[in-house]
């Protein structure tokens, strides 16, 4: 028997450069699950629509999925995930997406929304903690923020800044670098005078590359770090050796790690290491499939059942691709663990794992 799931992807829109590998991860995972008879005699049938990051098209794609009877949805970006929050809740269809905004982890706001890696804010907190823990000097570390004027760059800011103060950072600067920027010299000039020790880049890979290259030109000795979408394999091509030494916090493991999941993936791709985003697509689908499997075991496969099973997951390990995930009916934060990577020799090297406390006041913030 086939179980339908909806897959919203951006294959041709503004986020397609990362949307394509993510969608590939989702599809490969489905293929793997079906081939390995993960759901017994049942198979997953993904219904994929490329919505080109257009909300209206996401909406009608979702309605189409609904009429076809999907039990769960693999979503993609901020635009579609937020636009569909109310609908998935009404229709009781759990939505697993790659928009890791913290406010989606609060079931009061978004009862049917899930994702499988730590949210943007938690990740930022994680890496801040990591740096602080490794801080040797007496004085307070100086911290700056660079981010695009875009919902994606703005969401983790408030929580991150508050936590930085709590940890004893001195926040010295705030700059905007657009996602499509060609140049960040002026912003970096402003920052350079403040000599931050660390600088968070809240953009995507192209803007990270611009910042890193310009920082190299300005001979800044700041340590730059980014969140999930800020560093991927493209950066090594774009920024070359300017990327060396930058840090990134990732929710999922990457192709350079030795995990059970990675072996399967390399088999699926014929040995080619896919982009980091692929791994999260894979993991997200894997977790969803586990919930579906458990629902099937109990004999009722509805969206609501899948959601309940997801909320019942405790320390579930998706083949080592992400830290173990747990969801609770009143807390959709999948994990408080972040993997810290560093760019070394044109590769992402895992340099640490940071585990935060699951504080109630951080939920949704």
């Amino acid at each position: 028997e086939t179980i339908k799931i909806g897959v919203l992807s951006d294959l041709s829109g503004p986020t397609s450069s990362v949307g394509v590998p993510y969608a590939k991860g989702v599809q490969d995972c489905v293929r793997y699950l079906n081939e390995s008879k993960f759901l017994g005699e049942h198979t997953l049938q993904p219904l994929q629509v490329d919505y080109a990051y257009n909300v209206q098209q996401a909406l009608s794609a979702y309605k189409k999925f609904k009429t076809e009877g999907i039990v769960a949805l693999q979503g993609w970006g901020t635009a579609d995930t937020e636009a569909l929050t109310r609908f998935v809740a009404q229709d009781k269809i759990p939505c697993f997406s790659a928009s890791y905004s913290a406010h989606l982890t609060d079931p009061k706001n978004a009862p049917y929304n899930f994702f499988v890696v730590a949210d943007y804010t938690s990740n930022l907190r994680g890496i801040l903690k990591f740096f602080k823990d490794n801080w040797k000097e007496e004085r307070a570390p100086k911290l700056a923020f660079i981010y695009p004027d875009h919902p994606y760059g703005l969401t983790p800011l408030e929580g991150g800044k508050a936590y930085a103060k709590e940890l004893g950072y001195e926040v010295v600067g705030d700059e905007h670098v657009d996602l499509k920027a060609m140049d960040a010299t002026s912003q970096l000039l402003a920052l350079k005078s403040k000599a931050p020790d660390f600088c968070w880049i809240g953009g995507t890979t192209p803007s990270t590359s611009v910042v890193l290259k310009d920082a190299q030109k300005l001979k800044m000795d700041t340590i730059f770090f980014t969140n999930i979408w800020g560093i991927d394999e493209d950066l090594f091509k774009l920024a070359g050796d300017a990327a060396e030494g930058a840090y990134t916090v990732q929710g999922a493991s990457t192709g350079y790690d030795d995990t059970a999941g990675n072996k399967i993936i390399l088999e699926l791709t014929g040995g080619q290491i896919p982009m980091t985003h692929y791994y999260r697509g894979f993991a997200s689908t894997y977790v969803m499939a586990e919930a579906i499997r458990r629902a099937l075991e109990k004999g009722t496969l509805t969206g609501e059942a899948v959601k309940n099973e997801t909320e019942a997951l405790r320390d579930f390990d998706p083949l080592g691709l992400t830290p173990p995930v747990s969801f609770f009916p009143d807390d959709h934060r999948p994990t408080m663990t972040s993997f810290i990577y560093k760019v070394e020799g044109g590769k992402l090297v895992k340099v640490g794992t940071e585990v935060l406390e699951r504080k109630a006041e951080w939920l949704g913030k």
Partner: protein
Amino acid sequence: MQGKCGLFFESYREENALLVGGFQKARFAALLAVLCACPFVLNSYHLSILILINIAVVGAVSLNLLTGMCGQISLGHGAFIGVGAYACGALTLQGVPFLVALPAAGCITAATGMLFGIPSLRLKGIYLAIATLAAQLILQYIFLHWDAVTGGSTGLAVDPPNIAGLTFDTDEKMFYLSLGVAILMLVVATNLMRSRHGRAFVAIRDFYLSAEIVGVNLFAYKLMAFAVSSFMAGVAGGLWGHYLQFVTPEPFGLGLSISYLAMCIIGGLGSIQGAVFGAVFLTLLPEVLTWLSDVGSSVFPAASLYLVAAKEGVFGLVLVLFLIFEPEGLQRRWRLFKAWCKLFPFAY
């Protein structure tokens, strides 16, 4: 006095009526009946498309009033629709009943539209278009940064429309609501066009120098066009926000402005009927393309990524082909079709 197709009018008033002659009335009634029956036969996917069409009709008609009738090119319409969505959402969140919030949102958008219409005092053609492009970007900036009202990057979560205790939370109910609003707006726009204000708009578009000499206050009327058009855009935005129950900045970008302009062009500039056709066509187009690329991918799986990438190109191609081969839009096709039907057994 004799009108088209053998109708005789006994008064000027009759000639000016909205629906001329029994046949037209009957046809309209039939169309309305079919539309009203839709929720009983269609699934929620199809209904949601119809709802989006209804909303798009309101938006497209409003832009056609401004750009098609009054000749003021606007590249900021998407943002105006966004203003409506935010205003309506913010008002209902404050406890204002939907029935009040929707027109109020229209008025707020009208005020915004007038503000950004001020440059039309001095600017024409492409220069005005660029000034409205500025409006688009400035408004987007405000959506994202006026946290107190717009919720900033998080957006606004709003409840489904609620009118006198009736909650429009299903596609069926929402369909009737949006249909009602769309028809109301169509009637209003048609009325406008047969009155002195509508004529003044067209006069400004065709020859603003002589319009002024004839006694049309150019600035006042251009602003009025911006106001009326933005009001309707605000209503469309209010509907859209409440249908989605979530208002975020993303949907109201330049892309939306362009697709509304495309609706006007493809349907027929300056024609209310055309705007309707354009809205229907351009809302359906991506659905059809998605369907086609699905079918294509299942036949040639290797080509699926190409098919996906080609979708936007098809949108562009449709636009270009229409402009080249049917600059007057679908509305002219429809007229030709009607003429052909009338003569049908004896065509040629």
